[in-house]
């Protein structure tokens, strides 16, 4: 269940780069997910649903698969 750590890393990356400044909620996160990333999509969704962060309470995760090993945040929808 390292997907909880991954979810926290994603939020940390967004936070530290100022993308969450003034944001009340994030409705959607689009991720580029490599097949060798070692990350399970369903567990990552579960992790976001169970994080204690109200901004991500109703977030929808949208995945694009690729053949590599990286996980990249492509786009977010914020309110």
């Amino acid at each position, binding site marked *: 269940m390292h997907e909880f750590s*991954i979810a926290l890393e994603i939020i940390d990356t967004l936070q530290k780069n100022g993308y969450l400044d003034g944001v009340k909620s994030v409705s959607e996160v689009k991720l580029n997910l490599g097949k060798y990333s070692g990350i399970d999509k369903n567990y990552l969704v579960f992790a976001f649903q169970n994080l204690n962060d109200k901004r991500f309470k109703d977030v929808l995760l949208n995945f694009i698969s690729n053949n590599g090993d990286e996980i*990249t945040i492509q*786009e977010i929808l914020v309110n």
Partner: protein
Amino acid sequence: MLNSNNRRAGRSLLIQRNALETNEVIADKNKALFGKAFVMNFLSSPGSGKTSLLESIVPILKSDGFKIAVIEGDVETDLDKKRIDELNVPAYQIITNGTCHLDAKMVSAALNNLDIKDADIIFIENVGNLVCPTSFNLGEDMKVVVLSITEGDDKPLKYPAAFYKSKVMLINKIDLLPVLDSDVAKIKENALSINKDLAIFETSCKNNLNSGEIKQDRLNDFVSFIKDNVNLKASKIKK
């Protein structure tokens, strides 16, 4: 762009950043702190023999004049560190308290408590788990995946990330081959189908007589590989 059919309401922000960027920043700092030391991050399922391998190769490398430090990772207990302490090399135990992997931050904290300034080689033994540790860069020079022949030849296909991200695969406990149906050729074939560049070594920490004596010829090729990489890194840094 997000699929317009499923698109929710909101303001779109294009990000295009590594999702693990914060871990990467700390991993880069770790790499700088490692300095000239060649760092290997050992991944495997529990019980594959990571600690036994370290117990076997550290004395060989020490006797050849290499200075070594070890970072141990476990969910609970410092049992592995106690085993490494017997080798008289600096060691630090990270206890994750339930977390299934090491991340760069944990290793960074460990470096505050471990003397690595003269180290030529640093071994990091990750938490026993073939999935979770693969996602996190610790600042190492290479990942080494250890697969014991008791685990089955299909493991590279079932847990591909560990084999894709590693530069080396050790097929361990090779001394048990006479009493198992393991197919070493199949293990190699499966692993190379995931990562064609994997360097593969067959290793064992015991001989077939189960006397506990280390049969060094089953480790020599891997030890030589480590020495070559230590020297390669040192020469790159000098340049």
